[in-house]
């Protein structure tokens, strides 16, 4: 819709109308006219360093740089004249003056902007007679290498590191023809190792330590999927050759994260080819885990589970699911627990209190939560707890971008002086674990606080009262009643306050949405709700019990006391996560079955270990912490492993043969997702959009109708506080990330992080 302030100009003899302030290069792009550019990068400050974008403007004495020229009414621009061509050709000649033109051995060859330009405009001869300056290649870190002769000094890397990442690890050294990019540590980088600089580099000057000299871009297939690590759900493209993942990036700018990936998204894929990957099922014989065939392992697992069921009853069996397995897998696991076995002993490592948030928001839940894109569009953000720079890097990126591009305002309540503090208008430092008390105070309770804290909180409160449509982002520090208080406080602020709860892992939200919880069925339907039980009972072919189940800690305690006889663990490492003394607390189990990629602390104690496919090796869907559902796609493949989906499906068939439940007839993740769309509240999403690679937001509603309980037991919900360089148990097998000095002292798989 044309606004009265919009400007109309002419580019290459066609009229175009754009909002005021639009750059000519952007106006041209809208019309499908490509003005070549190197230094210009949308979202970063203007540099006008490369002069590739020169265009002719009527009545201007010389050529103008389209990347800095603001469109004006009546302007007449030409991008395709002889003079412009001459200029582009001349600029290329300058850019190539010291460039080695070593495309045949350059990683970027085949996908290089400079190569493309030289192909289009380049001359076959240069007028420079001087010898090209050579400089040796530098290794700045395990992740980032710099090859100065290829650098065209566009400064995209310097700007993305400074403006985008707020790390400022790169600078420009020397001057004139001697100029080079320099790292902050003199000859090495001391930074967040995100690799943003590598992918934003238009040429092959910055290359990736994990990918360099491995292959050519046209030899790989590209698989668009979702990052396997944190809960933010960045879209990533895997570059795969012969079933091996060689690279992850987001050069196609797909997804809400656009160019962004953090160090885990970009370099954390090598766990898939870690030598310790399990490739054969293991069965305990005479006290030792020994290799077995898939047939034998699954047959034994189902037979023994049926025996326990017969001897000690359904409630002597427990299930602990995963934060990383797909929605379909979680849904299947819940079905096996509740329908095949008939128990509500079902849980996972909960890292954010999604149920309480949804319950507190009630009917409004969908409208009152924000997507990652809406977070960027927020005018004011209140961040409580968490350290997004470390734990939720895309969230931090979105907040920084909102501040930089849109002048948004950030307010922070935290027990630590987190990095985002630098960007905050107000920062309230509370005592360790004091976030909940602060929120309770804000919501008007008579909580007594340290006078200093109370004073800064009231300053923050009055600042927030002047804002409109605040977005509140909070971590695992707020659970249960604190979430209810938060929503109460939010309701007192002007406009519509919206929320985002921050969890830890790629499908933390999905595990919760799919009902891997003792008290909630998929879609947050309370177990106590007869209708919901009947609905799922009908779909799953069983009568569901409303007998309360044990949560994860409860199951582990029951394993100690001997009340729990069998535990089925999918893609989780409860021994480590919940800090159980393994021998003591799991020793009394008759049967421990574990699906995992590696022999974790938990898998080591198992009777049967089933080698699972990793997130990058299967199809399905995951839901990010903001409730955005996206499809994951099979990139790599590791011989001998099976997806948790297949394992669970086959398992249900075998259980059915032992008289337990009905066999699951959903043959593929797509079929399971169809069932989810029909049966899980909030998941009736557009399949077409998902297939196109888009993110679709779920619209959960708590059907508890006002009786929602905020009773998360203390310690039931907690974050692993992973840093940028950690990713639970999985992070211990990300070799590249662990080799970075910023990742801290080397940890052996034994001594690693939480689940």
């Amino acid at each position: 819709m044309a606004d009265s302030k919009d400007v109309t100009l002419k580019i290459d003899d066609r009229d175009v109308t754009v909002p005021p302030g639009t750059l000519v290069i952007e106006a041209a792009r809208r019309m499908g006219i490509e003005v070549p550019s190197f230094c210009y990068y949308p979202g970063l400050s203007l540099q006008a360093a490369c002069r590739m974008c020169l265009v002719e403007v009527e009545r201007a004495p010389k050529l103008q740089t389209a990347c800095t020229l603001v469109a004006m009414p009546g302007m007449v621009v030409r991008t395709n004249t002889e003079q412009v061509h001459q200029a582009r050709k001349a600029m290329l000649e300058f850019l190539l003056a010291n460039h080695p033109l070593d495309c045949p051995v350059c990683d970027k060859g085949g996908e290089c902007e400079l190569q493309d330009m030289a192909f289009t405009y380049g001359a076959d001869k240069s007028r420079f007679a001087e010898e090209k300056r050579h400089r040796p290649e530098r290794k700045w870190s395990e992740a980032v290498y710099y090859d100065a002769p290829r650098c065209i000094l566009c400064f995209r890397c310097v700007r993305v590191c400074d403006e985008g990442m707020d790390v400022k690890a790169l600078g420009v050294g020397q001057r004139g023809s001697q100029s080079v990019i320099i790292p902050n540590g003199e000859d090495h980088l001391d930074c967040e190792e995100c690799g943003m600089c590598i992918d934003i580099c238009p040429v092959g000057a910055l290359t990736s330590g994990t990918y360099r000299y491995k292959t050519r871009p046209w030899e790989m297939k590209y698989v668009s999927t979702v990052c396997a690590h944190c809960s933010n759900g960045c879209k990533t493209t895997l570059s795969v050759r012969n079933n091996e993942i060689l690279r992850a990036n987001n050069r196609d700018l797909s997804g809400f994260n656009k160019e962004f990936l953090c160090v885990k998204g970009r370099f954390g894929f090598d766990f898939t080819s870690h030598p310790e990957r399990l490739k054969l099922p293991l069965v305990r014989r005479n006290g030792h885990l020994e290799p077995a065939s898939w047939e034998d392992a699954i047959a034994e697992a189902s037979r023994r589970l049926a025996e326990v069921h017969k001897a000690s009853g359904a409630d002597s069996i427990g299930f602990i699911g995963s934060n990383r397995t797909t929605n379909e897998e979680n849904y299947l696991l819940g079905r096996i627990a509740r329908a095949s076995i008939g128990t509500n002993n079902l849980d996972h490592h909960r890292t954010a209190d999604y149920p309480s948030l949804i319950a507190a928001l009630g009917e409004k839940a969908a409208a009152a939560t924000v997507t990652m894109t809406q977070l960027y569009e927020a005018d004011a953000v209140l961040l409580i707890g968490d350290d997004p720079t470390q734990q939720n890097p895309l969230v931090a990126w979105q907040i920084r971008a909102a501040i930089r591009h849109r002048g948004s305002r950030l307010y922070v309540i935290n027990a630590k002086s987190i990095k985002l503090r630098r960007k905050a208008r107000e920062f309230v430092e509370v005592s360790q674990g004091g976030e909940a008390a602060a929120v309770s105070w804000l919501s008007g309770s008579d909580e007594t606080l340290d006078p200093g804290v109370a004073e800064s909180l009231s300053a923050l409160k009055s600042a927030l009262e002047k804002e409109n449509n605040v977005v509140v982002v909070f971590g695992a520090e707020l659970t249960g009643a604190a979430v209810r208080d938060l929503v109460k406080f939010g309701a007192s602020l002007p406009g519509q306050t919206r929320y985002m709860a921050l969890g830890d892992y790629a499908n933390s939200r999905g595990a919760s949405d799919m009902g891997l919880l003792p008290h909630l069925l998929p879609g947050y339907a309370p177990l106590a709700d007869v209708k919901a039980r009947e609905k799922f009972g009908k779909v799953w072919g069983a009568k569901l019990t409303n007998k309360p189940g044990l949560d994860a800690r409860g199951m582990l305690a029951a394993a100690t006391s001997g009340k729990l006889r069998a535990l089925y663990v999918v893609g989780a490492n409860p021994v480590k996560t919940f800090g159980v003394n393994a021998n003591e607390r799991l020793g009394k189990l008759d049967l421990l079955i574990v699906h995992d990629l590696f022999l974790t602390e938990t898998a080591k104690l198992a009777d049967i270990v089933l080698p699972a496919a990793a997130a990058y090796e299967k199809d399905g869907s995951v839901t990010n912490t903001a409730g955005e559902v996206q499809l994951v796609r099979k990139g790599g493949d590791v011989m001998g492993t099976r997806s948790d989906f297949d394992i669970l499906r086959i398992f249900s068939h075998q259980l059915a043969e032992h008289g337990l439940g009905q066999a699951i007839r959903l043959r593929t993740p797509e079929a399971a997702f169809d069932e989810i769309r029909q049966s899980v509240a909030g998941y009736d999403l557009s399949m077409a959009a998902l297939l196109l690679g888009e993110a679709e937001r779920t619209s959960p509603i708590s059907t508890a109708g006002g009786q929602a309980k905020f009773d998360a037991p203390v310690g039931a919900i907690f974050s692993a506080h992973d840093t940028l360089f950690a990713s639970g148990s999985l992070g211990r097998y990300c070799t590249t990330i662990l080799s970075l000095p910023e990742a801290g002292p080397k940890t052996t798989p034994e001594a690693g992080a939480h689940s």
Partner: protein
Amino acid sequence: MPQKGSTWNADRAILRIRELEHLPGALLPILHALQEEFGYIDKAAIPLIADALNISHAEVHGVISFYRDFRDTPSGRHVLKMCRAESCQSMGCDATIQHVEGRLGVKLGETTADASFTVEAVYCLGLCALSPAVMLDGKPYGRVSSEIADFLIDGMQRQK
């Protein structure tokens, strides 16, 4: 004026940084002050400056390396800058430079073993009318033939 003593001292550096950090665009004044204080800018100063001004290490290093006048190693007691730009070249500066290099036993950019002289190339001192030109300890001299260069060096060596 010969260059000042050049023992790096973090406390003195911090004092100088403190004096100037409030200025708008304080980086250049600070760099000048440190160079004046120590005769060069020690690497150890980079984090101190970066912290004081809340800018990155890379940026401080970038500015130091951008300006030829800033040194990152101690200089000799006297600094002789010899112009090698077009005008001086066409007036024969190369011969003078060769002569000075021979006499002091160093190449351009080096410091003599006894640390008495640092000889550097510069590109234009703005004294083209008096080419070939040099600058000795901050003072410009014009029409510097090999004899005049000797005379200047002799003068400094006598002075010690």
